[in-house]
């Protein structure tokens, strides 16, 4: 069984390495096949592992497999090991399953791109990193996967390196993620220092005894982990990279950021919940972050005009729900929503991709409209995704979101507040998702559509259409694995790994769905009123509240604040250093060497003449300072 898990892990890596080594020697279509085949192998292996686990007693479903002792320093032993347990298998299935659909879709979507092979290689690398992250058997290997996910997402985001905006977006994503990596690493140091081990079993087993509850160290460890989780999962205030990440090839990498990568934070909390529970303050912080994020992102999504960005903000908002769930201790509910979200969000992105594909790359929804008649299948797919997202029963999103809301009700006073947030969020979700649906598919066709729409027999190549179909089915039925008042398959499955802290009573399970369905329907109605029919109400509203509109369109100024506080001072420092230090001292010699062998003009040489002495002078000044310090401290 563990052999199958290793196979699942390494097969995408093998594909990535093969593509890197083969370069131009493999044809584009073969490259795509190779990668999708390798991810399919991962999925099948994961399914096999699941089947094997199912045949075991629930309390014994945990297997560690170590390839070799990776490093041992003193008492600290870290193996190159994977952990196979219900939680990791759950994530493996989501990652490799949805990953497989994405990869297959991409072979159609990226066809004809100059650098198709590179794209496939990056994607294989991404799947490998993600699997490493969810399968690792200790915190250090988890950090490795964590970092590699950030890296491969960087590569995907600025895949189109000719676009300045893509490059900037990639950099931003990487820096935010690197910040998260750093905080996780600092957390790990504390764990090593206190517990002296990094493998999950030992750490979780002795955490309470070695670290203690609610003291500074416990809080710092949990904060470090939370920093990483919030960065990777794009939670306020570390969320700014995600909307920009939509610069990646439409919509494939966007999809990766929606369905898989960003859920890593939720996984991390669920996996290390023992450490979080030692610092309930931090756990509650996570919940509050999630609550704030789901509202903020929902509001911003209302005014965005780029089809991918709307879905991106929706992603942030939905992950906010998952953070709320994890934060109140309803890990199963969070993971459940993670799964259904992967289905319907992937569906939405793929449908959006079909739209963009049909419109030759157009992403601005103001230049769409009336596509319902032209693209009936896409419209149906989009409608299913939207209904699931909005939480309309009996689609997948309904069950998972309401499980979260029901769980918050049991979370004490904070839970009640979060419940209110969640219900408000449900309203917003319904509103912005139907706005998107109405604006894109209803109304009259814009001029752009009339000129650029190109029709294909199946509204897209087959390789793009079938994953959409599969996901549409999943988005409809995926929620049935867990039904309020009935059964809780996900909770039960994950029980041995992450026992929930909250147990909603019967009335909660009944009350919350009814309320949230009402709210969602209200949201849909409002959206209908505003965007569903020809009306000048939206513009009138915008005119009425210009400040609010601008603030929302500027995404509540998060970017501007970071820019002023961090980016610009850093840039100024670099520029100043360049002007004061670099140019006078160093640039001269660069110019001289660039001038070529014979062209060492005497003028340049004169600039040079100062240089060497300056070098020596700096040494002398440094020496004088050091001696002065040394004799004065003695």
């Amino acid at each position: 069984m563990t052999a199958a898990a290793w196979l699942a892990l390494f097969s995408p890596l093998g594909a990535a390495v093969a593509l890197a080594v083969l370069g131009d020697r493999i044809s584009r279509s073969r490259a795509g096949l190779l990668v999708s085949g390798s991810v399919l192998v991962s999925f099948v292996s994961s399914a096999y592992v699941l089947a094997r686990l199912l045949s075991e007693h629930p309390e014994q479903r945990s297997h560690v497999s170590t390839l070799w002792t990776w490093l041992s320093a003193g008492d600290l032993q870290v193996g190159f090991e994977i952990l196979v347990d219900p939680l990791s298998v759950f994530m493996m299935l989501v990652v490799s399953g949805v990953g497989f659909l994405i990869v297959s879709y991409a072979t159609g979507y990226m066809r004809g791109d100059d650098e198709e092979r590179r794209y496939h290689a990056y994607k294989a690398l991404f799947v490998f990193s993600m699997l490493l992250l969810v399968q690792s058997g200790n915190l250090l290997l988890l950090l490795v996967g964590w970092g590699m996910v950030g890296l491969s997402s960087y590569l995907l985001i600025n895949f189109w390196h000719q676009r300045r905006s893509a490059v900037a977006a990639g950099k931003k994503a990487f820096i935010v993620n690197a910040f998260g990596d750093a905080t996780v690493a600092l957390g790990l140091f504390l764990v090593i220092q206190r517990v002296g081990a990094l493998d999950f079993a030992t750490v979780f087993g002795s955490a309470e005894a070695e670290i203690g509850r609610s003291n500074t160290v416990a809080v710092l460890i949990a904060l470090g982990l939370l920093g990483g989780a919030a960065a990777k999962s794009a939670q306020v205030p570390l969320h700014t990279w995600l909307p920009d990440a939509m610069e990646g090839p439409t919509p494939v990498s966007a999809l990766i950021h929606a369905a898989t990568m960003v859920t890593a934070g939720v996984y991390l909390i669920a996996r290390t919940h023992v450490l979080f529970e030692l610092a309930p303050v931090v756990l509650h912080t996570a919940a509050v972050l999630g609550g704030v994020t789901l509202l903020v992102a929902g509001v911003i999504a209302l005014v965005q005009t780029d089809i991918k960005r709307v879905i991106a903000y929706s992603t942030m908002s939905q992950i906010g729900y998952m953070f709320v769930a994890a934060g109140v201790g309803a890990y199963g509910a969070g993971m459940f929503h993670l799964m259904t979200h992967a289905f319907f969000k992937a569906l939405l992105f793929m449908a959006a991709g079909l739209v963009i594909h049909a419109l030759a790359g157009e992403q601005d929804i103001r230049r769409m409209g009336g596509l319902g008649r032209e693209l009936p299948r896409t419209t149906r797919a989009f409608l299913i995704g939207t209904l699931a997202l909005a939480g309309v029963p009996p689609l997948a999103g309904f069950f998972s979101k309401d499980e979260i809301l029901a769980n918050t009700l049991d979370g004490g006073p904070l839970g009640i507040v979060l419940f209110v947030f969640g219900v408000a969020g449900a309203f917003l979700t319904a509103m912005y998702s139907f706005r998107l649906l109405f604006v894109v598919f209803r109304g009259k066709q814009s001029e752009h559509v009339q000129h650029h729409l190109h029709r294909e027999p199946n509204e897209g190549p087959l390789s793009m259409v079938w994953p959409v179909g599969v996901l549409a089915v999943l988005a409809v039925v995926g929620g049935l694995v867990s039904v309020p008042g009935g059964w809780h398959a996900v909770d039960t499955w994950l029980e041995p790994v992450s026992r929930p802290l909250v147990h909603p009573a019967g009335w909660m399970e009944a009350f919350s769905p009814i309320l949230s369905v009402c709210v969602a329907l209200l949201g849909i109605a409002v959206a209908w009123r505003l965007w569903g029919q020809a009306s000048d109400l939206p513009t009138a509203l915008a005119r009425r509240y210009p400040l609010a509109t601008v603030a929302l369109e500027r995404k509540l100024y998060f970017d501007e604040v970071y820019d002023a506080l961090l980016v610009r001072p850093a840039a100024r420092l670099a520029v100043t250093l360049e002007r004061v230090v670099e140019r006078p001292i160093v640039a001269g010699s660069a110019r001289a060497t660039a001038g070529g062998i014979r062209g060492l003009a005497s003028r340049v040489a004169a600039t040079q003449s100062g240089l060497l002495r300056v070098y020596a002078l700096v040494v002398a000044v440094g020496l004088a300072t050091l001696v002065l310090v040394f004799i004065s401290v003695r």
Partner: protein
Amino acid sequence: MILASLAGDVLVWVVWVVAAIALLASGFAVVLFRNPFHSALALILNLGSLAVLYLLLSAEFVAAAQVLVYAGAVMVMFLFVIAYLGGRADAPWASSQAAVRVAAVVTCVVLLAEVVLVIALDARDGLSSAAEITEGFGSPRELGRLFLGDNLLAFEVSSLVLLIGAVGGVILGATVRRGEVEE
């Protein structure tokens, strides 16, 4: 007896003062002369006065080596190269960047002040008295014993470094032969 010792002391002082003045003056001259040829000559004087000081410090063998090897062989090579370069070796004295020059002088003065301060503070205790030396201290015999004994490695490595230097000089100084067959 006391008188003789006193006379010896005075003599040493006189020699020391003369050598010290020569040392510092020639040192400044090396740095300040416009013509490298003159600077090189000043360095020879500098090395000579150093040899005198070494003698006062009972380092006979080092003093001899200083005069023979250093002031003799090395400086001859120096003068030869300067002569080879001819008048072209004359380099402008002044710096184009006065600020650098000022900063350089200030830094060196500060550094000097620091080291002198350290020596002065130390002179009250550690440096005030020198250990008694034996008869053979600093003699060729004594150093020979060290070079073949305790410091054998230093001896061997010095010769190796010199070999590499010589090879390097040949490599750098040799004209590049053109037209040699390349693979």
